[in-house]
């Protein structure tokens, strides 16, 4: 009895954070900076900032010109569905699919990285704010449930996270895409500038430089001395030894560590939340050590689930008790439902003739951005919501020679001159929350740790398919306006999940009967559990969501600490 009490004391913290990605890193930083002794759990292996094995490798130092081998594809066939994740330079940041199975009632592309830092190492770094057009849309259109917040609630928190992480971009004064606290934007290439002008003149649509979490100038604070400005190597997915883009490894986890309040435990797979029926609270989590197989319980006053949308949902679904027979906090029955992503791979590309005397220096890991204009203002379409475009223009390199007639000396000579300019844009479309797009727990199929696996049943529907027609046709029209020739359109939706922006399976809302979380990301039915990864999203908007997870996480942590001090948790 004494021994147990001692063990429990040793394993007790003020707070537990599950996950070390974008959201977990922020929760760790905020909670530790506010003085909470915090245990941060990561299911994957330990990685520290700077431990990026391929980060400085030249093209010739990567086997098989960076291509995946057939053996790689046996282990990571699902992870390779993007076509860009499983490379010799990046495959170590993505899971082994054989060891981490899931089931697909309909095709679903679930891209994951299990290691400290999570997908904050490999994310696309595009950082946009949701605005009131997004927060009000569900209520105005009678879709799903209303967001329990508005832009005025979130705007200071967007300011806060942007200032800390450093986002470069250009303010445009658009209602549908709020301005932010930006470091200088990156430069456009010649054809991009021309396209910006042409599209504004012909359609009145704005083209802005991609807003990206890269330091284009030093940060305005001195809290992250380890972070240097962008070196334009465009090898971001490998991890940045300069700390030039935001990741939890390069930024928030270092800040959390510096407080002396963080205990980081890798290889810790959370199986479930421990619920105390008498107290009506979660008292901790039960984990399995991935290396030893040992099961351990940890305890805390407040728990932040930041294990990724489906990671957290899996833990919640697996945490059953008398009070929560259908999954933790699932009084509404919405847990696991309303899966959203962004649907993409719809757009066009073409060739721009001329400008052969122009080129560029440096490798810009960013593109141009066309903010949403459909169903904005007086524009009305036969579908709801809209899409933004990401894209860019550049000169073709040597690879275009494969399809040219030259060989021999002629090929060698022509390789010295870059090929023609190409220009392309692809849409990122809003995905409506459909109750029936859901993920469920399959207790009959367990992974090697004994955890029940997930089964996905989600699909694009009519609204998304109608929108895609515009995504393709508008792209071609704008390229035409920019003077592009030989325009080719593409429309390959793939499976949901391919945007790697999964959201919505523990949505927030005003009514506990129809949502899992309240406006502070707090589980309606259990006040000391907060969920701040993409699962809280009530709608998807059409912009990249990570910045929004950061803002909500910081806000939730602030609220949690206040409530803790008031004795309310």
């Amino acid at each position, binding site marked *: 009895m004494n021994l147990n009490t001692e063990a429990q004391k040793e394993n007790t913290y003020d707070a537990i954070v599950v996950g070390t990605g974008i959201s977990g890193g922020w929760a760790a930083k905020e909670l530790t900076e506010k003085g909470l002794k915090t245990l941060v759990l990561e299911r994957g292996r330990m990685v520290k900032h700077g431990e990026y094995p391929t980060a*400085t490798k*030249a*093209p*010739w130092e*990567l*086997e*098989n*010109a*960076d*291509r*995946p*081998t*057939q*053996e790689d594809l046996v282990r990571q066939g699902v992870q390779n569905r993007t076509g860009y994740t499983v490379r010799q330079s990046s495959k170590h940041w993505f899971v082994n699919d054989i060891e981490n199975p899931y089931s697909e009632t309909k095709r679903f592309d679930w891209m994951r990285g299990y290691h400290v830092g999570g997908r904050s190492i490999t994310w696309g770094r595009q950082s946009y704010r949701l605005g009131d057009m997004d927060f009000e849309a569900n209520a105005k259109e009678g879709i799903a449930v209303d967001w329990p917040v508005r832009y005025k609630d979130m705007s200071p928190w967007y300011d806060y996270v942007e200032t800390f992480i450093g986002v470069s971009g250009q303010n445009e004064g658009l209602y549908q895409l709020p301005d932010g606290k930006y470091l200088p934007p*990156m*430069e*456009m*290439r*010649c054809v*991009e*500038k021309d396209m910006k002008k042409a599209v504004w003149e012909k359609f009145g649509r704005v083209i802005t430089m991609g807003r990206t979490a890269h330091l284009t100038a030093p940060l305005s604070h001195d809290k992250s001395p380890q972070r240097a400005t*962008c*070196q*334009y*190597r*465009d090898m971001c997915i490998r991890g940045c030894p300069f700390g030039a883009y935001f990741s939890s490894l390069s930024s928030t986890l270092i800040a959390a560590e510096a407080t002396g309040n963080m205990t980081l435990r890798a290889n810790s797979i959370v199986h479930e939340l421990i619920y105390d029926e008498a107290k009506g609270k979660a008292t901790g989590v039960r984990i399995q050590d991935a290396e030893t197989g040992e099961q351990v319980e940890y305890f805390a006053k407040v728990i932040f689930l930041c294990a990724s949308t489906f990671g957290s949902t899996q833990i919640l679904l697996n945490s059953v008790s008398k009070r929560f027979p259908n999954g933790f906090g699932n009084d509404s029955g919405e847990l696991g439902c309303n899966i959203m992503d962004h649907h993409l791979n719809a757009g066009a590309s073409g060739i721009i003739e001329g400008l*052969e*005397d*122009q*080129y*560029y*220096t*440096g*490798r*810009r890991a960013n593109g141009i951005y066309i903010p949403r204009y459909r169903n904005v203002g007086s524009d009305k379409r036969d579908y709801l919501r809209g899409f933004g475009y990401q894209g860019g223009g550049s000169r073709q*390199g*040597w*690879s275009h*020679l*494969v*399809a040219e*007639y030259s*060989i*021999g*000396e002629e*090929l*060698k000579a022509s*390789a*010295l*001159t*870059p090929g023609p300019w190409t220009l392309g844009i692809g849409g990122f479309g809003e995905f409506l929350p459909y109750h029936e797009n859901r993920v469920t727990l399959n207790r009959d199929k367990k992974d090697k740790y004994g955890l029940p696996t997930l089964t996905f049943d989600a699909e694009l529907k009519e609204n998304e398919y109608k929108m895609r027609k515009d995504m393709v046709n508008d792209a071609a029209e704008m390229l035409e306006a920019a003077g592009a020739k030989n325009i080719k359109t593409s429309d390959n939706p793939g499976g949901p999940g391919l945007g790697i922006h999964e959201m919505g399976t523990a949505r927030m809302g005003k009514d506990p009967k129809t949502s899992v979380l309240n406006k502070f990301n707090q589980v309606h039915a259990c006040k000391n559990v907060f969920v701040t990864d993409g699962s809280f999203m009530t709608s998807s908007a059409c912009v990249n969501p990570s910045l929004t997870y950061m803002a909500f996480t910081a806000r939730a942590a602030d609220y949690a600490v206040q409530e803790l001090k008031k004795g309310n948790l």
Partner: protein
Amino acid sequence: MDRRQALQRAGLVLGYAISAPVIAGIMNGCKSTPELTYKPVFFTEEQAGLVSEVAAIIIPKTDTPGAKEVGVPAFMDQLIKQCYKKEDQDRFLAGLAEFDDGAKKAYGDSFMDLESAKQKEYVKKTHDAALDAAKAGTAKDKPFILMAKELTVVGFYTSEEGASKILQYAPVPGAFHGCVPMAEVGKTWAT
């Protein structure tokens, strides 16, 4: 012309049999069969020899090194073994055999026995016909010659010599400038 047959006939005339290695030696004297610079893990020696020659025709040695000099044949051999699906490996090998048969039909000799000018002519002819078919949309699969070309180009321009000396490569550019006169940049960036 069939050198092997001619030599064997000569052997008979002279009243003694010439052993295979000697034939090989004499043949090398006739038309220098280039030695492999690596030990293939996927190709047979014969296949490897042909692939090396095709690669060297696609990207030859000029005042700068060519495909063979920077190790492209070994790159191709390893990549096909490790990265190609079995069906694509088979298709590559079948295409290679067909390519060689085509040489025999057109010139009466296997590709490796052709004079260098004829080898170049045949590669160019096969290559252009394959591209025509690809552009016309009549090609079923990517033929051997275009698979070989792709691998040669990729292998060459991702090699240290190809990327950093023949083209240019900046490991740490440090800055990005979106509009720079071509004359100032000089030549194509490797990446």
